[in-house]
């Protein structure tokens, strides 16, 4: 007690002289400030969609990034030339199992809608070779534009993380939807119906 006396006394007397309310006042303000900061941080963390991460595509409602290149059949595909119809942009690779599983769905979708000009499909191989891609289409069917060489730039500009990923581009050239993982004919149909329904209603 005697040892602590000299160190305590100047502090205690100082607070006594200048702050009649007692020594707890600055500590109280500090505690309140720390409490406010803590609450703000908790609020920010609780409301942020941090876990959504890469699932949220910033391309939705934006003009579709350019796709312009040679198809494996030698013709040139230009996404801008497809204005006026829905375009299903499918990123795939020949070795990915969900891609093989979803392929018949795309074939069915294409057969129903491409002849009428309502919709078209374009496939873009991700990190693959044109030989493999040709074999893949010969085996699994599908008669639409397929880009196989030097396609990394398209995948990156659409924000592809892992195949399969499918993007739906409206007749206006705006990206409306992103499907992560395998897609079905019904998925695409119901999405187009939802979008055209809401467009007609508004």
């Amino acid at each position, binding site marked *: 007690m005697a040892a602590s006396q000299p160190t305590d006394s*100047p*502090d205690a*007397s*100082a607070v006594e*002289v*200048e702050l009649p309310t007692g020594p707890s006042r600055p500590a109280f303000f500090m505690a309140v400030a720390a409490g406010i900061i803590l609450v703000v941080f908790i609020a*920010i963390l609780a409301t942020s969609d941090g876990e959504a*991460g*890469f699932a*949220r*595509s*910033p*391309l939705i409602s*934006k003009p579709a*990034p350019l796709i312009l290149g040679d198809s494996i059949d030698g013709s040139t595909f230009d996404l801008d030339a497809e204005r006026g119809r829905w375009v299903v942009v499918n990123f795939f690779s020949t070795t990915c199992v969900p891609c093989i599983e979803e392929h018949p769905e795309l074939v069915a979708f294409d057969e129903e809608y491409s002849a009428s000009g309502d919709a078209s499909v374009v496939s873009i191989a*991700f*990190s693959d070779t044109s030989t493999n891609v040709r074999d893949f289409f010969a085996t699994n069917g599908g008669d639409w534009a397929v880009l196989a060489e030097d396609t*990394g*730039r398209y*995948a*990156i*500009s*659409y*924000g*592809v*993380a*892992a195949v399969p990923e499918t993007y739906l581009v409206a007749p206006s050239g705006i990206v409306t939807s992103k499907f992560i993982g395998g897609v079905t004919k019904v998925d695409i149909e119901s999405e187009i119906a939802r979008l055209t329904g809401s467009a007609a209603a508004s």
Partner: protein
Amino acid sequence: MFSRKTVIWLCLLAAALSALVVSTQLEGPPRTNEDRVRSLSEDFACPTCDGQSVAESNAVVAQEIRREIRRQVDDGRTDEQITDALVASYNESIDLRPRSGGVVGLVWTLPVIVMVFGFAALWSVFRRWRAADPRSATDADVELVAALRQERASGLSDASDEWSEDAGR
């Protein structure tokens, strides 16, 4: 005009500030495209990996992003253009660096604010302590010491060993 202590502090402050200014203005050695690709790929998160950068990961998408960065650097795009393009297609989760605006900007500003307030608080507390610590003797102190001295001086007639040293003065 100024006390010696103030002059020393001002000199220190000037030296620190000029060192900061010089270090920000100095340009490093010219960066090659290879350097830019490497440092850029360290700034982006691999979208399919947990906590790895594009530079570290061997995932297919990381390789493709590296190749795309390489292509854009060779095309003469600036670091900022490349970053903006990747954020535009993947969203800001891909950018590993904290952004300077919005709530994330607090990462940069909060430490500075806390430091300024901390120093200000220390300064005011020290000043208060110094003001409350009277180094000059009060009248009561002087009286007390005088009384003790007198007592001691009268006790000296006993030639006590304890006080002999003081008595010599």
